[in-house]
């Protein structure tokens, strides 16, 4: 592994349970985690890599658990070879968005681990600017937006500079594509799914929000940074990235709906006026039960699928590149070639017992896991449905 590819272990690995991970007792949690780690390693070592299972683990409780796993699994979820980076462009300073990127990266101190030395952080910030502008140079049609740097820094801190270039390059032409138009019109369209989802689930809350004229801008930073800008806990952020990388591009909007629904009581007690409601909603509580909300978001997705909402609410599904290219991304990631480099790396971790799961969690979560795999090919969904229980741990 080259120096550039070396990911930094800046953040405390998951010695403790991931955020929102409720355990009944210590041994139960450890058992669950150990079983899941074994299962994930098995999926990574199969040849070709078992991406369907990886998706499921990325969604299910605790996500991919450690940054070491993320470094291997995230590229698989996006069907990217992290060792094939895009070419360096010598003229990054001439890119139209260069100045804005520098301004925003310079102001991203909060995203780096507290206690990191200034000179060390400055090196990473320089790298971050390079990563962002290289991806922009590679894709001239893409426009930088404030918040894109929040996505990129998350990848940088987990997978390192060069792998970030590859991953973000792919993500930018898929999940993030609509955010990167010259205008934010299609981003607005994505946010337009939010209130119809809430309406389906809690019409009274929806009516309250409509009456207050709060709009959806309170959730803008949530969507376009995948919550990286608004959550303080790095572990929570990467847990959500596991989830979003395994899911449909609209999943951050479904999670936003789950959060708003979860806060129903607070919202309904608020004065029904835009500033008050915006103020309440935009301040995201830092102690959200993320694992529960992930399940809720998946539930909402299963019940009120985007295509159905689009029909009913006259939303712009087909005009979205993020949404329309997702299926091909999802399908291509299912048929990945054997990866000898990855095999060599993961072989070191062999020797664990075979994967074992415990079929005792709620059906709802399994439904979500099944959904993640069935988006692409309908026939495969049934196979997974039969096996979901045994995989869930």
């Amino acid at each position, binding site marked *: 592994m080259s120096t550039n590819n070396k990911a930094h272990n800046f953040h405390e690995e998951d010695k403790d349970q991931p955020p929102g991970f409720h355990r009944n007792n210590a041994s139960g949690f450890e058992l669950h985690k150990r079983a899941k780690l074994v299962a994930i390693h098995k999926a990574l070592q199969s040849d070709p890599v078992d991406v369907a299972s990886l998706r499921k683990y990325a969604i299910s409780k605790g996500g991919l658990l450690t940054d070491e796993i993320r470094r291997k699994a995230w590229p698989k979820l996006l069907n990217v070879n992290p060792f094939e980076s895009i070419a360096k462009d010598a003229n990054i300073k001439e890119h139209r968005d260069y100045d804005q990127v520098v301004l925003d990266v310079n102001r991203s101190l909060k995203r780096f681990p507290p206690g990191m030395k200034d000179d060390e952080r400055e090196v990473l910030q320089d790298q971050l600017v390079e990563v962002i502008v290289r991806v922009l140079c590679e894709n001239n049609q893409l426009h930088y937006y*404030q918040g894109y740097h929040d996505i990129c820094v998350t990848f940088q801190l987990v997978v390192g500079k060069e792998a970030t270039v590859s991953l973000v390059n792919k993500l930018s032409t898929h999940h993030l594509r609509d955010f990167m138009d010259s205008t934010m019109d299609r981003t607005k369209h994505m946010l337009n799914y939010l209130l119809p989802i809430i309406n389906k689930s809690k019409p009274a809350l929806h009516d309250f929000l409509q009456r207050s004229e709060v709009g959806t801008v309170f959730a803008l930073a949530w969507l376009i940074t995948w919550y990286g800008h608004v959550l303080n806990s790095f572990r929570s952020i990467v847990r959500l990235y596991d989830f979003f990388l395994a899911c449909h591009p609209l999943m951050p909007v479904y999670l936003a709906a789950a959060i708003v629904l979860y806060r129903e009581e607070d919202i309904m007690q608020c004065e029904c006026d835009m*500033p008050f409601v915006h103020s309440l909603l935009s301040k995201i509580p830092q102690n959200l039960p993320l694992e529960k909300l992930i399940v809720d978001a998946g539930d909402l997705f299963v019940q009120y699928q985007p295509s159905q909402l689009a029909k009913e609410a006259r939303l712009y599904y087909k005009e979205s590149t993020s949404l329309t290219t997702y299926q091909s991304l999802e399908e291509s990631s299912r048929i990945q070639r054997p990866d000898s480099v990855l095999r060599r790396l993961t072989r070191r971790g062999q020797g664990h017992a075979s994967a074992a799961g415990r079929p005792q969690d709620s059906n709802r979560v399994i439904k979500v896991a099944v959904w993640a795999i069935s988006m692409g090919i309908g026939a495969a969904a049934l196979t997974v449905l039969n096996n979901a229980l045994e995989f869930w741990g």
Partner: protein
Amino acid sequence: MEGSKNTTGTILEEGESSTASQESPSQRRIFKVIVLGDSNVGKTCLTIRFCGGDFPQKPEATIGVDFRDKDVTVDGESIKLQLWDTAGQERFRKSMVQHYYRNVHAVIFVYDVTKLSSFENLPTWVDECDRHSLSSNVPRVLVANKCDITDRRVVSTNMGQKFAEHNDMPFFETSAKSSEVGESVSNIFLYIAKKLKAQRPHLHLRAGFGGISGSGRTSVRKLRLKSSGLRGFEPEKTPKSKCAGGCFS
């Protein structure tokens, strides 16, 4: 906590939350103020400072629109100022920020005295305001920020003053970081509060959000073009005694 991630603390300093106006809804008037200007000129820091927070050690880019509010007392009347702190990047202003121009009671334009382009772009921001049909009597002020950085200053007092005069705005030089320089941040906002109070003596709570945008685009345009003639419409001038730090109304 500092920065845009959590601004709750700025509201709580007076023992209130953002919803606390329920305590006397019929008495407290609310004014909506929008803060505009290029990226990185210090809009967020100015509003945080005004709302009682310290200068953020790790300021971040604003994504979309942030909201802060603060109660101030003007001549014995408690007034709530709601500050809408907008993202500077053009794409946000075109698609997202429009919503927040509605029924705005005052506008603050901010530029960075160490960055010429942020000054040169001011006409774009003024035009933008005009396009949103803001009433001619919506007070606008111009704020030159980062005046503490004297060695890198590129926009002189004179340049800012001229622009302000041409656009008929009071002008303040300040620093969100250092209270030693220019006008104090809170005086700028208090000036606005005073002006709004004097200008709208009969405004009722909430009604302010629906009933102010009386003048249409045409009249705004006319008045803007004849900026020298606009002065007569101003109900009160910036009090000279408050201008020690560089206010040139």
